[in-house]
């Protein structure tokens, strides 16, 4: 049994799985149910001046019949008075003293506003604070959330104000709706943040109804952009975590968020530098019980790998994440089709023929049986055929041992520079 406890900038939790600040953490009832189900921590639904929500708040993308490939919401922060939330936080913390409760906060970008809420929340007893600089809809129109999170100076200044009074660790939650997230992450570091969390949701419009031509969702025939999350955003989030993790200026822990649906996703985020993860859409799709497999699967994985603590996994893939210019141009893989496993759907052929490098031939053997073969000298090793292949093990991308040594683009350019006149 591996040790799943984490310590993120001083915030300890029995496992790395936290519920993100979102509808699942709206109330004490929900968070307590989540802790009973096994979640290690919860970032409370963002506290601030209570808002008013619309109905028709969520929408989701289905892909090829699979529901909730992506998820979109236009819900705002808590609509309940601070006292109500604080009372429930207190009760929950009392019942679950070893679980992490982090209060997500959002107020106007004014020093006194931040000071007031930080003090009142910390007085009730929380394990940490998360500053919501990411909510992309609604609150942003009022100068909060992503609107302040997109301006590095505001990120730094507000973090600084919070740190002036905060006694617990401060996590700054970053918006992905920015060209380079490392810029705002650095601003958070400069402001004194103890950790960053990412990503918040991505500006999105879920769809358009083809009969009514209304937006999806719509509120009485009108729509507004929402925040996108769920499995579809995982690669975007993972990149942002990786970019921050490998940036030497961002030397604080990262809480990974974005499309994490199972222990494998979580392990990937942890390998790419996250000290723990936050989950929302998967819980909204399936309920709190999904954490059981997250814990079990991660534990079994660590045991199989002989890793004693999940903390030992943190960032192990970060050195492998690099710039394109540092990739070896002389590394060569080619596709090889295992005709014993291949079921002859010809998807590799047509994908290569129509959209890649025309190197998979449809042939017939002496008995008239169809088979597929890669002309390896023409194969550029793009992986497409193995991606579209529906059968595991039918196409291997095989490394071709090179007689030439490794050479990156950067090495090439610096070598030929002396010949350029």
């Amino acid at each position, binding site marked *: 049994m591996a040790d799943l406890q984490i310590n993120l900038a001083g915030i300890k939790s029995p496992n790395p799985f936290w519920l993100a600040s979102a509808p699942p953490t709206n109330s004490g009832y929900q968070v307590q149910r989540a802790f009973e189900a096994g979640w290690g921590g919860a970032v409370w639904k963002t506290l601030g001046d209570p808002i008013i929500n619309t109905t028709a708040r969520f929408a989701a993308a289905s892909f090829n019949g699979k529901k909730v490939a992506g998820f979109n919401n236009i819900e705002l922060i808590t609509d309940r008075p601070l006292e109500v939330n604080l009372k429930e936080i207190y009760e929950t913390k009392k019942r679950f003293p070893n679980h992490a409760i982090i209060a997500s906060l959002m107020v106007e970008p004014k020093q006194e506003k931040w000071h007031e809420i930080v003090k009142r929340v910390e007085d009730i007893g929380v394990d940490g604070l998360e500053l919501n600089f990411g909510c992309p809809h609604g609150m942003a129109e009022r100068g909060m959330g992503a609107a302040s999170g997109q301006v590095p100076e505001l990120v730094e200044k507000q973090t600084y104000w919070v740190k002036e009074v905060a006694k617990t660790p401060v996590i700054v939650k970053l918006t992905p709706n920015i060209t380079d997230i490392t810029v705002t992450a650095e601003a958070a570091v400069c402001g004194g943040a103890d950790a960053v969390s990412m990503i918040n949701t991505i500006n999105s419009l879920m769809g358009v109804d083809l009969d009514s031509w209304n937006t999806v969702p719509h509120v009485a025939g009108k729509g507004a952009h929402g925040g996108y999350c769920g499995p579809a955003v995982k690669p975007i989030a993972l990149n942002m975590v990786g970019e921050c993790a490998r940036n030497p200026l961002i030397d604080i822990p990262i809480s990974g968020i974005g499309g994490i649906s199972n222990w494998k996703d979580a392990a990937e985020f942890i390998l790419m530098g996250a000290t723990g993860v936050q989950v929302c859409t998967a819980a909204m799709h399936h309920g709190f019980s999904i954490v059981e497999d997250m814990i079990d699967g991660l534990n079994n994985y660590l045991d199989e790998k002989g890793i004693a603590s999940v903390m030992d996994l943190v960032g192990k893939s970060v050195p492998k994440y690099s710039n394109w210019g540092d990739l070896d*141009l*002389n590394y060569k893989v080619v596709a090889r089709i295992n005709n014993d496993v291949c079921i002859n759907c010809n998807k590799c052929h047509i994908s290569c023929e129509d959209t890649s*490098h025309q190197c998979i031939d449809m042939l017939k053997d002496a008995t008239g049986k169809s088979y597929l073969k890669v002309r390896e*000298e*023409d194969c550029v090793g793009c992986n497409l055929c193995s991606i579209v292949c529906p059968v595991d093990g039918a196409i291997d991308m095989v490394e071709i041992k090179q007689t*030439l*040594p490794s*050479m990156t683009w950067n*090495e*090439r350019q610096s*070598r*030929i520079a002396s*010949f*350029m*006149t």
Partner: protein
Amino acid sequence: MSEYETFMEEKNKIDSYFDKGYQVISIFENLSGTFVDFVTGEEAIEREVVQIQLLTAEARKYIATKLLFVS
């Protein structure tokens, strides 16, 4: 001619100039690919300059690898 055959032709050219003792004196890259100027060894009385144009990505990679590790 397949891309691979074009590459092999370009690679053979590069190899043959190196084999004959030519050296690269200039490399120029633009929208049309890479242009490599070879010259014969310094001891020759009249230095002959030959230019080859490399069209394939593989050859543009290969010439740099040769320069980095072989010559």
